[in-house]
């Protein structure tokens, strides 16, 4: 039943090098360079050695960017990850102080995160009419609550045997181990989202959940899986955070969820779902780390750093919106 008009439809991909560079990711690379130049201008001690020395405590957070990116592409959100980090770190300390070998401690840390994420995922996929913002607001309070109850009146716990943690905090050349793991994770997660059928399904669900369902995609199964994955990655973050803190307390991981969401959004992932990619989120994470390090070296107040990051976040959302509106106005004339 060939088309009777014989009309041909082009299947040649469009867009050359110019289009590829003019993306938000391209802009983020420039911003990254600019932030580093700025760092060198405002702080005399801002150099590669110092940045790498301060990097590990920030790198830990970055693992969650991948899972959060997936969740945001789905059109969902998870604001419980900070609490998951807290609970995972707490459980790992208990495990370590109970004399478990480090491999098991690491496993406890990651599994705690996985179970928390699974709980989020089960609730989100069973009660589809509930907004995930509310579900994870609930579990945010619950997970941290469990951690606080476990920590008891002291409100903190230290790892007695730090050998294992020191081992994962060690360096290969000038780079911490976590940096290499993070880069490998980045390659894997970016590739999955951009190149695989699984990644395509995430975009389909985020763009039109109903159409995705009608196309035979297991929407709720995938949502559940992604929440579990993010929980698991939060456990990984907790482990690397422990390797810099050697302990946990009731405020561990406080505010991480917002920082991680901010990195994703700054990286160009829309909270409405179906748009953006992890390359942007990954670069955005490093922009924020470098900014924090540079401003921290100048002893600039932490709160002020947050103000600056908040402003950058809003600009990152506003600028594309404005630039998208400009050509439309021209056309109207």
């Amino acid at each position, binding site marked *: *039943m*060939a*088309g*009777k*008009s014989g*009309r*041909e*439809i*082009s*299947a*040649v*991909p*469009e867009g050359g090098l110019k289009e590829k560079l003019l993306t938000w990711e391209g802009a983020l690379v420039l911003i990254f360079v600019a932030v580093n130049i700025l760092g060198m201008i405002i702080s005399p001690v801002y150099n590669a050695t110092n940045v790498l020395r301060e990097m590990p405590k920030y790198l830990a957070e970055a693992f969650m960017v991948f899972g959060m990116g997936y969740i945001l592409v789905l059109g969902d959100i998870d604001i419980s990850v900070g609490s998951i980090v807290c609970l995972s770190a707490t459980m790992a300390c208990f495990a370590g102080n109970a004399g478990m070998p480090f491999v098991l401690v690491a496993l406890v840390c990651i599994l705690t995160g996985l179970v928390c994420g699974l709980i989020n995922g089960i609730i989100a996929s069973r009660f589809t009419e509930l907004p995930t913002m509310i579900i994870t607001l609930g579990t945010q309070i619950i997970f941290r609550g469990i951690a606080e109850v476990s920590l008891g009146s002291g409100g903190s716990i230290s790892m007695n045997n730090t050998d294992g943690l020191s081992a994962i905090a060690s360096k290969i050349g000038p780079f911490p181990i976590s940096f290499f793991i993070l880069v490998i994770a980045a390659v894997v997660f970016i590739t999955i989202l951009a*190149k*695989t*059928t*699984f990644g*395509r399904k995430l975009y*389909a669900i985020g*763009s*039109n959940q*109903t*159409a*995705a*369902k*009608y*196309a*035979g*995609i*297991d929407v709720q199964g995938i949502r559940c899986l992604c929440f579990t994955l993010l929980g698991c990655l939060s456990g990984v973050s907790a482990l690397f955070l422990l390797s810099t803190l050697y302990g946990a307390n009731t405020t561990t991981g406080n505010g991480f969820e917002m920082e991680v969401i901010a990195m994703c959004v700054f990286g160009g992932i829309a909270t409405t779902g*179906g748009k953006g990619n992890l390359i942007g989120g990954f670069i955005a994470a490093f922009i924020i780390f470098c900014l924090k390090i540079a401003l921290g070296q100048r002893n600039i107040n932490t709160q002020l750093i947050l103000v600056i990051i908040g402003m950058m976040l809003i600009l990152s959302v506003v600028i594309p919106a404005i630039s998208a509106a400009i050509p439309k106005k021209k056309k109207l004339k």
Partner: protein
Amino acid sequence: MNVAEDLILELKGITKIFPGVKALNNVQFQLRRGEVHALMGENGAGKSTFIKVITGVHNAEEGQMYLNGKEVHFKGPLDAQEAGIAAVYQHPTSYPELSVTENIFMGHETVKGGIIQWREMNEKAQELLDSLDADFKATDEVGALSVAQQQMTEIAKALSSNAQIFILDEPTAALTANESEKLYGIVDKLREDGKSVIFISHRFEDMYRLASRVTVFRDSQYIGTYDVDGISNADLIKAMVGREITDMYPKEKIELGKEIFRIEGMSRTGFFKDVSLNVRAGEIVGLTGLVGAGRTETIESVCGITKPDAGKVYLEGKELNIKKPEDAMKAGIILLPEDRQKQGLILSWGLGRNVTLPIQDELASNGFNDEKKERELSKERLEEVDTKAVTIFQPASSLSGGNQQKVVVAKALAQSNMKVVIMDEPTKGIDVGAKKEIYEIMGQLAKKGYGIIMISSEMPEIIGMSDRVYVMRNGRVSGCLDRSEVTQERILELSMEQGSSGNGGKTA
């Protein structure tokens, strides 16, 4: 018609064009003061659009509207409301969380010195409800009321704004017999109070019980206005459906194979009950009935979108266990959903990706998308159905309705394991040319031996394309007609509520 009659509302030469479709074509309508006037026609005849023109929701491209003899131009619904025209829809669009009083006075609250006078408003609302013999209180929450009570709230709201013309859009469709009787009483009362009423209904009983005149629309055109006393059921049905069938429907005689698909005893509480049907290879089976008869709901359960309470599905003699949409698709049952923009397509995506979405796993190697294969296959399928597009990368939102539907068809064709195709309202809202192309594709699919189920509210295509027609009414199959015995009258008879009051409510 009598020139001197007292017309409260008159519309002349109304034409309303939606992109690609003439929804109203030079229609006219006259409403006498104090009259109850029925507006009838098939689904899609243009009744609802016409109502929306009267209520200012749509602006007509051509035509004049006279209210009390003076020409009026409504820019929006607010203008119509201020002019005394009130519409009550089948599913009232009220604020469910608020009280009856708040709903009635929404936008025109009684205010003294900047303070809302709740007690006064509650009293006034209660008076209105009492005048309608309502069995609920003004302080009740609207969301907790039944559909009938919500409609009554809407009518009370219209009364409070001093409306003179009441438009009731299928008011009895969701009501029980008792509730309908109550509504009749209210309409009688409105008439006694000198109000004028237009109502749309598929039930002949409503018309005989209430209306003095009936206007019939068909195919977006005005057919005629008749005195209810002087028209027989048969004449009315003819007026509603009577149309010559031309070669619009390229149905070829195909040797039917053996049974390929069967559903047995499908039930889902509140939606459909004990639905059974079967399809043979090469057969086009029509599934029709009024909107809300349970056709789409049945099919969605068959395809694993919703869970049925009971029922079996057989494909080529083997029973299938369908739990989710994927199961139906893997088995080869492909659904082209009713709402192509929400269910069928991802509008922001390119055409190509839409086409290959259900089969990307099959084309992929080791979980990685094979973009080259996807591009080639989607290009081939899109050209096969003659989609008017420039590139496979343009977003689906950039196409017209007819071409969007072709993309949905291409998406189905891309699934090589397809055995049964279920098309839900495949030509809804698309222009005549694209319609015919969709029919041609259907004919070709039948020729290739697929089993086809076509759900449609459009009689001509049901009659023109189907080998057999199942008619549903109130969630049940009310009859199955062979091609040789199918007529528009028979279908209408099977799909409509039979009149029970005995005053001429028997269908022809």
